[in-house]
C-alpha cells in the first residue's frame, strides 16, 4: 500500500509552480504516474502532495509549426508511438517510443515524466538527443528554453530548479536525406543500453552523422568526437573506427556496472550497436 498523500489540481502551470514553491520537497509533480507510483511504493520518493498536472490545458498537445514538433509534457508514450505526425516527422522517436516497457506503461507514462525522472535505463532521451531537442521549463516567473543535453544532468537528476516544471519539448526532424536507426538490447523490459544514429551518406561515404548512446553511464550522451571521426569514411571504415573506439567510449560515457549489465559489456555492446545502427541508417534511404 502507498503512504497517504493529498492530490492538488492546479488550473494552470503558474499555479502548479506556486504550489511547488510553497510545498518544496513535500510535493512532487504527478502526470501519468507510471514511474512515480512505483517510486512511492518502493519508498524512493516521499511526497505528501501530488501536484496533478494532467488537466492543465495545452500540456497534452502535439503541435507542428512547419519546422519543429512540440510535444506537451503529459503526452503519453503510446500516443508518440502511434501519432501520424510523429510517425511522419520523427520516425526514429516513434520507433524508440514503441519499444518502451510494455503497452500498459506506454498507455500511462508520459514523455515529460520520463525526462524529469531521468532514469538511466530509458529509451526516449537517447532518441531525442539525436534530434537536438530542447525543453521548455516553466515557473511562476516565466519560461526558459534549454537543450535537452543540458536538462539531463545526471543519474535521476535534471536541471529543474525549485518551482520549475517541464512544459514541453521541441523536436526538429532530421535534415532531409538523412537515415536513422534506434537499436537497443534489453532485459526486464528496460534497455540495458541503447544507441541512436543518424547519418547522411554521399557517394557511399558519411557526409555527416549524429551518434547518441544511453544507459551505459548516468545519462544519455552524444558522441561528438566520434561523429567527426567518421565523417568522410565509407561504411566499412566507420565500422572499424567504432570497433576501435572502446577507450574513447569508456572515457566519455562513464560506464557503470548495474543489474542489467557490466560496464565492460555495455561498452563492448555500444560499439557493436553503433556499427549496426550506422549500417541500418545507410540503408534507410533518407527516411530519418
Amino acid at each position, binding site marked *: *500500500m*502507498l*503512504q*497517504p*498523500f*493529498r*492530490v492538488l489540481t492546479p488550473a494552470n502551470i503558474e499555479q502548479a509552480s506556486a504550489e511547488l514553491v510553497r510545498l518544496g520537497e513535500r510535493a512532487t509533480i504527478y502526470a501519468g*504516474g*507510471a514511474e512515480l*507510483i*512505483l517510486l512511492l*511504493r518502493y519508498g524512493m520518493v516521499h511526497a*505528501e502532495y*501530488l501536484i496533478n498536472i494532467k488537466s492543465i490545458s495545452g500540456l497534452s498537445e502535439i503541435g507542428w509549426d512547419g519546422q519543429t514538433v512540440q510535444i506537451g509534457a503529459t503526452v503519453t508514450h*503510446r500516443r508518440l508511438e502511434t501519432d501520424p505526425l510523429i510517425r511522419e516527422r520523427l520516425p526514429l522517436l516513434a520507433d524508440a517510443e514503441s519499444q518502451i*516497457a*510494455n*503497452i*500498459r*506503461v506506454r*498507455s*500511462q507514462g508520459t514523455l515529460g515524466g520520463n525526462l524529469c525522472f531521468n532514469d538511466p535505463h530509458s529509451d526516449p532521451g537517447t532518441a531525442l538527443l539525436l534530434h537536438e531537442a530542447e525543453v521548455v521549463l516553466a515557473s511562476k516567473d516565466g519560461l526558459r528554453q534549454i537543450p535537452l543535453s543540458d536538462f539531463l544532468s545526471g543519474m535521476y537528476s535534471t536541471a529543474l530548479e525549485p518551482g520549475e516544471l517541464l512544459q514541453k519539448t521541441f523536436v526538429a526532424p532530421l535534415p532531409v536525406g538523412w537515415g536513422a536507426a534506434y537499436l537497443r538490447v534489453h532485459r*526486464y*523490459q528496460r534497455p540495458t543500453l541503447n544507441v541512436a544514429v543518424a547519418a547522411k551518406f554521399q557517394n557511399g561515404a558519411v557526409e555527416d552523422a549524429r551518434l547518441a548512446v544511453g544507459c551505459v553511464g548516468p545519462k544519455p550522451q552524444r558522441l561528438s568526437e566520434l561523429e567527426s571521426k567518421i565523417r568522410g569514411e565509407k561504411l566499412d571504415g566507420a565500422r572499424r573506427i567504432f570497433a576501435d573506439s572502446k577507450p574513447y567510449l569508456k572515457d566519455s560515457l562513464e560506464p557503470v556496472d548495474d543489474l542489467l549489465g557490466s560496464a565492460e559489456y555495455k561498452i563492448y555492446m555500444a560499439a557493436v550497436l553503433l556499427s549496426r545502427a550506422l549500417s541500418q541508417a545507410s540503408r534507410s534511404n533518407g527516411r530519418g
Partner: protein
Amino acid sequence: MMAEPLAPIATLQSFAIEITVNGAVWKGNVPAEEVLLDFLRYRVKLTGTKRSCESEVCGACTVLVDGKPISSCSYLAFEADGKSVMTIEGLASGAELDPLQEAFIRNMGAQCGFCTSGQIMAAKALLLDNPAPTYEQISEWLNGNICRCGCYPAIAQSILEAAAEYKNRR
C-alpha cells in the same frame, strides 16, 4: 479468507467517484492513494484481477480503462472516475463465455492460471484495437504479460482463434 487492508488509517484525502465496472455503476469514496487493483479486489470484491509483481512488468493485474490496458497495481483508483473499467469478470455474458475464454480453455492456454486473467484482458484490449492481429502483433502487444509456466504458444493460438470467432459472429 480475504484480508481487509483498506482501513483508512491515516488517509489525508478521499475522492467521491463514480466508476462503471463491467457495466455496473459503483459510487462511493476512495482514498487518494488507493490503487485500482485494491479498489477492485477489496471494495468491489472482484478477485479475478491478480496482484503479482506490483511494478508494471508482469501484467497479472491488467484491466481495461475505457478499453485501454493498464496495470491496475499502479493506477490510482480516483483516476477512473467517470470511466469504464472492464475486468475478467466482465467478459462472459451470463453462462456464455467470451470466445477468448473458450479458446484459452480449448488450447490449454494456462497451466497454473495465475497470469491468465491478465493475459485475457491484454488480449481483449488487442482485439478491440486490432480485430485481426498477426502472430507478431500478438507477440508485441503481449510481451508485457509474463507466463512463468511458458504457455505462450497456446496463448497466441487462443488469441488467433478468438479473433476468427469474433469475425464469424459479426
